[in-house]
Structures are given as structure tokens and as C-alpha cells.
């Protein structure tokens, strides 16, 4: 069969025919189910995969804590050290900050300055409050001789909760950067992608905190 006959049959591996073009300028394929996904979808999916790898890293810290939570080396245990009120406050801060982040996401998509900046500011303040409470807790523990070097239990505690706190800190830096970017350049497509990725990151941190307050604090106090 000649090439012309094959082309007539519809076989066109190098898009010889002038087929219809999609909005992005790439040729569209009549028989193809779909074209290349948009940058927004690709970026978010890629970031989602990174977040899953981050969750796997956290689960390694969780596993270490689960194994070592009983090894108090004659020192204080969770029951002696944790304060339920502070944990409740920290949880409230993060949960509300997740909600505020949701408001900011809606605001960004609607290009509503009040919702975006208001939501992001609320997220930042609540996140900062969480960090303040956590740093307070850590310095208190260290002051009373229950620092990360006291026992395996405390080492794994500081590693797990400290890792989460570090993520929150970096998230706050990212948050401020995103507010600055929208302020400087408006709701540009690439900045919107970053806001979406930030929202994913922030919600994931709250999910990890759910795991932490359950396994570390509630189980520590109950058992």
C-alpha cells in the first residue's frame, strides 16, 4: 500500500495531514481520547506525588516513634509530660488554618482579593500560633530535663513532632512568598499553580497532625 493510500486510510503517524488544532496550538488527534493535560493538572499531580512521598517519610518517623514510645530509660513518659489543653489548642489552630486556606483557595480562583489575602493572613496567624505553642512545649520539656537526649522515647518524639513543626515553618515562609507574589504580579497562571500546590501542602500538614495528635498525644495520655 502506498503512503498516499495509507494516509487516506487515516494512518498519519507524523501528523502529515492538517488536522484541527487545539487551543494550545498543538495538533489535536481525532482518534485520541484526550490531548496533553493542562499545566495546572500536571503540576498539581506531580506535587501530589511529592506529598505522598513526604507522607511516607513521616510514616518512617511514626514507625520509629511507635517502636520506641515505651523506652523511657527511667525518665518521664508521655503521660508525665503532655498537656491535653495545649494539644487541643494546637489542633484547633491547625484545623482552622486549613479552613482559612480553603477560603484563600476559593478567593484565588475567584480572583477575590479580600478572600485571598484575608484567608492567607488567617492561615498564617493560626499557623504561627500553632508554632508558638509547639516551641513553648519543646522549650518547656528541655528546661525540665526532658530533651531529645533524655531517652529513646523523647528522641523519637522530638524527631517526629519537630519534623512536622519544621514543615509548618517552611510552609509559613512559602505562604508569605505566595502572598507577596500575588501582590506583585497578580493572579497569573503560574502563580495560581503555586497557590494550588501550597494549599495541597498545607492540608497535608493538617492530615499528618491528625496522625500525630492521635498516636503521640492521645495514646500517650490514655495508655
Amino acid at each position, binding site marked *: 500500500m*502506498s*503512503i498516499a493510500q*495509507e*494516509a487516506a486510510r*487515516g*494512518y*498519519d*503517524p*507524523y*501528523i*502529515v*495531514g*492538517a488536522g484541527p488544532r487545539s487551543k494550545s*496550538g*498543538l*495538533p489535536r*488527534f481525532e*482518534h*485520541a481520547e484526550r490531548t*496533553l493535560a493542562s499545566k495546572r493538572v500536571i503540576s498539581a499531580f506531580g506535587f501530589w506525588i511529592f506529598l505522598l512521598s513526604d507522607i511516607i517519610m513521616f510514616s518512617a518517623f511514626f514507625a520509629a516513634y511507635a517502636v520506641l514510645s515505651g523506652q523511657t530509660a527511667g525518665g518521664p513518659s508521655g503521660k508525665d509530660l503532655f498537656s491535653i489543653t495545649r494539644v487541643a489548642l494546637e489542633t484547633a489552630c491547625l484545623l482552622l488554618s486549613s479552613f482559612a486556606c480553603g477560603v484563600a483557595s476559593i478567593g484565588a480562583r475567584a480572583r477575590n482579593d479580600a478572600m485571598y489575602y484575608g484567608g492567607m493572613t488567617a492561615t498564617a496567624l493560626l499557623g504561627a500560633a500553632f508554632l508558638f505553642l509547639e516551641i513553648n512545649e519543646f522549650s518547656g520539656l528541655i528546661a525540665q530535663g526532658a530533651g531529645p537526649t533524655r531517652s529513646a522515647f523523647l528522641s523519637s518524639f522530638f524527631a517526629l513532632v519537630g519534623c512536622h513543626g519544621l514543615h509548618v515553618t517552611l510552609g509559613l*515562609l512559602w505562604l508569605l*512568598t505566595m502572598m507577596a*507574589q500575588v501582590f*506583585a*504580579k497578580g493572579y497569573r497562571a*503560574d502563580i495560581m499553580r*503555586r497557590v494550588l500546590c501550597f494549599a495541597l501542602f498545607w492540608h497535608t500538614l493538617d492530615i499528618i497532625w491528625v496522625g500525630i495528635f492521635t498516636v503521640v498525644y492521645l495514646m500517650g495520655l490514655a495508655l
Partner: protein
Amino acid sequence: MPLYVLGFMGMTRRMQHYDVPEWHPWLLLAAAGAAVILAGIGLQIAQLVVSFRHREQLRDTTGDPWNGRSLEWSTSSPPPAFNFAVLPRIEEGDAYWETKQRALRQHVLAEEPAYADIKLPRNSATGFVCAFFATFLGFALIWHIWWLAAVSFLGAFATFVAFAWRDRTEYRVSADEVARIDRENRSARRAALAQLGAAE
């Protein structure tokens, strides 16, 4: 594997001599294996020498030196910055192989594709610079040099923000440029096809 078995039988490494007769057959087996490996190394060296000696005749310009079956062989080696000139339209399994079979039967390359502009991300030194700061940050954290830790962290963060502030993130390779680069590859493939045709 025979050495693994010997380990279970209690033999250690670095023995100058041994006096356990049970080990002997396994050690003979391991020696035979070592001889095979030596032959392999010899063949590797021979291959390197021969390849170098005949490099002019053996050189491949098409990017498909082993008559590959799948689509990664449809571009040149090394590939251009955009990897593939067009997104191929696939209607069957083994699309690249079928295209080549058709070309062999008809003694002519498939028709030239419709080239379009390609947008590629711009290069950036951000990764390299950030890594530089990260190295110092790691060093400072290990040795508790807090001022250096703070400075390196700020440096890394500033680099990152500078990268995020870019307005131009992509550059465009024009359709003509894509066509020019692809045509070079196509002429190499055409020459190879002609050679194959002449050989029949």
C-alpha cells in the same frame, strides 16, 4: 553462590590456607566461575579495542543503532533539547517498528511531519546555587555554627524566591528550527535506509 554456601559451612574470608576437606569442591567451583569472569573481562577489553579501531565504520548517525522496536529510538542520539520534533500519533502497537517496516518495503522514509513551534523551559542556575547554600547549611547544623546556618538558609531561600520571581519561564524553538534539526536526523536515516536497500 558457592562462596555463599561456604559461608554457611563456616569458612571466613581472607584465608591463606584451609584444612577442611568439605570446602574443596565448592572452592573448585568458585575458581571455575572466576575463570569465566576473567574470560568475560578479556572479551570486554577486546570489544573496547575493536570498537575503537573500527569506530569510523561502526559509527551510527541515525540514533537507532540496534534497530529498536519502540518509540524512544525515533529521535536522534543525543536528542535535541525538545526530544521529539512532533508528538507522534499512535494507532497501533509497535508503531515505530511498523513505520520502519513500511519504509523498508517502500524504500522511502515516512513523510515529513507538520512541524510546529515548541516551548521549552529556560535554564536556571537556581538548583546549583541552592545546593551550594544547602551544603553550608548542612555543615553549619552539624557543627552548631548557628550564624552560618542562618545565613545559608537565608541565601537558599532568597535564591529560591528570585527564581520564583521570573517573568519569562520559557523560550520558544521556532517551527523552522525544529524542522532544520529534524531534517538533519531524517537525512541520516535516509542514508541508512539507502544503504540497507543497496545491501539487499
